[in-house]
């Protein structure tokens, strides 16, 4: 009987523990909860282990982040004298050139237009996408009919290669596609525009593409945040008799606020970075360019480093304080929510 009792006690003592936990527990039992003492040699070995493991990521950080960013700042104040064998020299001309590009009409550049396009993309990705993603997350959470199906379809555009998606979309709306055929044969249109080649249509179609495939762009992130809200809080709200809007506004949004505010701050951090699908759809229609795409295009096509670096630096100088300001602002909401 006593033997059986001891066996049960031992089983209870170790039940549900991993082998490592058992060893640790036994160690504590015999050595009175002392942490295992480590010799200097062992500590040195641990230090060597830590820095060996961190060496490659650290080297990568130093070369491909620290060096690259320092160089990009330096390049903003440099240019090349091709007449004298490509010697780099220090100058402020890059900033003067940027000022000229913004203030004077230059053939081939329309920085104001690029700025407007950039802002439109940003608004689609932020002002449109964040609120409707919250609403969609809420209705899915409340088990809208067909939620499982919609979740899979919503997920598709984000896993399919943009080249494929763009190619199919372009064909779908072309003269020989579904939209083109409907326009000519059902609605009697005399011609179907070459949507992405004609400057008049290119921009609206690009925005439409971003709008359409950016549908519920933040849904995945928000659904994770909403799933973490405790059932007890939700039950309490329902028992209090709140309606849908009260529930969303007073319970869900405050409790999801860390995720929402992070998304808002991140979107402000990327305010000048939108490139849309310009490279795939309208690489030669300059009216559709954004600041982000212009920098990419200058580097890829012309290996032009200096003015894009200067423009990038200016954007960083604007976006960084803006980000901090937005962060301070958004974190001031719902501070007392736990």
């Amino acid at each position, binding site marked *: 009987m006593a033997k059986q009792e001891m066996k049960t006690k031992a089983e209870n003592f170790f039940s549900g523990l991993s082998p490592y936990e058992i060893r640790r527990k036994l160690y504590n039992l015999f050595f009175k909860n002392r942490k295992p003492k480590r010799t200097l040699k062992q500590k040195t070995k641990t230090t060597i*282990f830590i820095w060996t493991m961190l060496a490659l990521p650290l080297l990568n950080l130093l070369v491909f982040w620290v060096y690259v960013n320092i160089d990009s700042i330096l390049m903003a104040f440099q240019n090349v004298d091709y007449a004298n064998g490509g010697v780099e020299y220090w100058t402020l001309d890059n900033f003067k050139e940027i000022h000229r590009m913004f203030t004077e009409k230059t053939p081939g550049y329309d920085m104001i237009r690029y700025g407007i396009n950039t802002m439109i993309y940003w608004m689609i990705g932020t002002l449109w996408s964040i609120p409707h993603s919250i609403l*969609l997350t809420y209705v899915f959470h409340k088990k809208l009919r067909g939620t499982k199906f919609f979740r899979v379809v919503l997920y598709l555009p984000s896993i399919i290669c943009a*080249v494929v998606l763009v190619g199919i979309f372009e064909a779908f709306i072309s003269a020989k596609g579904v939209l083109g055929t409907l326009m000519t044969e059902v609605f009697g249109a005399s011609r179907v525009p070459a949507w992405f080649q004609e400057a008049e249509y290119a921009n609206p179609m690009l925005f439409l593409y971003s709008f359409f495939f950016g549908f519920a762009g933040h849904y995945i992130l928000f659904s994770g945040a909403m799933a973490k809200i405790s059932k007890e809080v939700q039950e309490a709200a329902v028992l209090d008799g709140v309606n849908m809007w009260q529930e969303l506004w007073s319970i869900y949004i405050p409790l999801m606020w860390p995720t929402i505010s992070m998304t808002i701050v991140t979107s402000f951090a990327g305010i000048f970075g939108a490139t849309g699908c310009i490279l795939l759809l309208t690489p030669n229609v300059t009216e559709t360019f954004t600041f*982000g795409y212009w920098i990419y295009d200058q580097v890829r096509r012309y290996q032009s480093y200096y003015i894009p670096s200067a*423009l990038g630096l200016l954007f960083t100088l604007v976006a960084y304080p803006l980000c901090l300001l937005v962060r301070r602002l958004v974190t001031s909401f719902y501070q007392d929510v736990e």
Partner: protein
Amino acid sequence: MRKKRDVLERRRTIGERIFFIITFLVLAIWSIIVLCMFLWALMNVFKTNIDYLREPLALPKLSDLQWENFKLAIDKLEYNGHGFWDMLFNSVWLVGGTALLQSFSVCVTGYIFAQYEFKGREFLFKTVLFIMIIPIYGALPASYKLIYGLGINDSPLYLISQIGGFSANMMITYGFFKGVPRAYREAVYIDGGSDFKAFTTIGLPMGKNILIAYFLLNFITQWNNYETPLLYFNNMPTLSLGLHAFQQEIQYAANYPAYFAGALIAMLPILLIFIFFADKLMGQMYSGGLKG
């Protein structure tokens, strides 16, 4: 349990019902358009180009399915003298290598920061936080200059630039390994094991799920990436680059059925990952990013 479900799923007011119906309709229309697009493209894979141009909305002739379009697509997918198989090989090592290195390195950095106290830890940790919040726009020219300066473009050595480790993703693995008791590691010491043994017998097995999920997500992102190969891999093109060239070409000399076939082939690995790992991928993401 039944009672709880009832409490949460309360009766909706008329206004709420109307809102749910409208949302359902909008989503249904959106889904139908998206699925129609894919089905239409899939349908046209099996047509000749002439049939496609003549009747783009007609179903393919079942007696004459054009399987040759796949062969044509493989022949047509070409970039700078590199054919389909070359590009597939480049995609596999570049994408697989990048995904593996990045996922492994964020696991390593997350594990080290969560499990150890060491000199310089605070500084490095704050550096990661700084990297996360500072918006940098002008780094592309410097990065491009560096990659070409080092001569690692069009080379497997390019992978060294992809190691990463100190990024926003590290915070996710850090959060995960923070939840692993340090006592486990100490138990390995008691057994006479080293830190490396602790990492391979505790860190890696426990972080296996996060490593796999992060690898898969990274694989999908890198497989679909065409902008980076366009900058650095013009002489070792990937499949997405070949498809991009094909997509630009069909605007002028259209052979859409062959293009759709090529698109289907390029999509296949991602679709297979999605089919076999959908629950894992979606589950990981829906739970608020990655989790262990």
